[in-house]
């Protein structure tokens, strides 16, 4: 489950850059809001690709592909892979199941009481609800929010949900760090009006050093 940061960085940047490029070429001029959405889309897609194949990356790509406004950009980024990926990742049956679960909280409570009634009818006087059900209910109540936050979390339980959440947090953190350093790099370059200077020595990220070189 370990994500080697080096691998992730290069993949993320490549994918992110591609996404920005595509969204620029699709609609030009582009509003700030539109650009923000495509930046977010590129970042999420890049994060999913950088991580590889996990439950949450599949769910995330599916979610992204289902939004109408993302489709043209996604097609541009993924090209021929778009059809394949969308077919592979979107399982309409699964999502129907999730939607049904979301709508039927009340009906769940009904069925729970019905089960209690049923078990009491079977076992006589005492109402015995199996401890597995009680434990599951408690767990579901506690993890309700987490399930909503982690992509694909609604379909997971227990330790699977926790390990997916851990993985997702690690990747999110990396995504934020990457975007921060990109922002800083873009800021520096735009403020000092620098184009890619081939003679500038490529050192470890040291913003002050870059500025100093450009001023020479």
């Amino acid at each position: 489950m370990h994500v080697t940061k080096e691998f992730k960085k290069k993949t993320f940047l490549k994918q992110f850059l591609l996404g920005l490029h595509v969204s620029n070429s699709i609609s030009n001029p582009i509003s700030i809001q539109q650009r923000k959405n495509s930046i977010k889309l590129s970042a999420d897609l890049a994060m999913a690709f950088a991580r590889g194949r996990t439950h949450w990356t599949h769910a995330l790509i599916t979610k992204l592909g289902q939004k109408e406004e993302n489709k043209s950009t996604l097609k541009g980024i993924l090209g021929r892979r778009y059809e394949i990926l969308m077919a592979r990742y979107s399982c309409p049956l699964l999502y129907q199941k999730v939607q049904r679960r979301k709508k039927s909280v009340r009906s769940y409570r009904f069925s729970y009481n019905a089960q209690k009634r049923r078990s009491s009818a079977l076992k006589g006087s005492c109402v015995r609800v199996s401890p597995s059900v009680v434990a599951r209910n408690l767990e579901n109540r506690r993890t309700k929010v987490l399930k909503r936050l982690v992509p694909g979390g609604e379909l997971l339980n227990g330790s699977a949900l926790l390990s997916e959440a851990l993985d997702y947090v690690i990747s999110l953190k990396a995504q934020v760090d990457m975007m921060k350093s990109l922002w800083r790099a873009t800021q520096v370059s735009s403020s000092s009006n620098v184009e890619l200077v081939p003679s500038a020595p490529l050192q470890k990220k040291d913003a002050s050093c870059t500025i100093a070189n450009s001023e020479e």
Partner: protein
Amino acid sequence: MSSRRSHSRHSSASRITEEEINELVSKLQMMLPDAPISRNSRVSARKVLQETCSYIRSLHQEVDDLSEKLSELLASTDTDSAEAAILRSLLMQ
């Protein structure tokens, strides 16, 4: 259907995953931003879940803010220098 589920099967399954869950909870604890210095004290699993949820939400918010900042920045500069900056950070990694 649920009456068919045997007690023994579930309890054995929960016995196996009990340690797993504790390990995952402690790993999550380590990921969270303000981890107290003494990690020997066990924070309750529920607290860790809550903090994980709020941490994920704050990370989502950061991504949103950064996207907005990048969008404004890329709007003002021309694409070439922006891509140059990105390429430079790519090479530096």
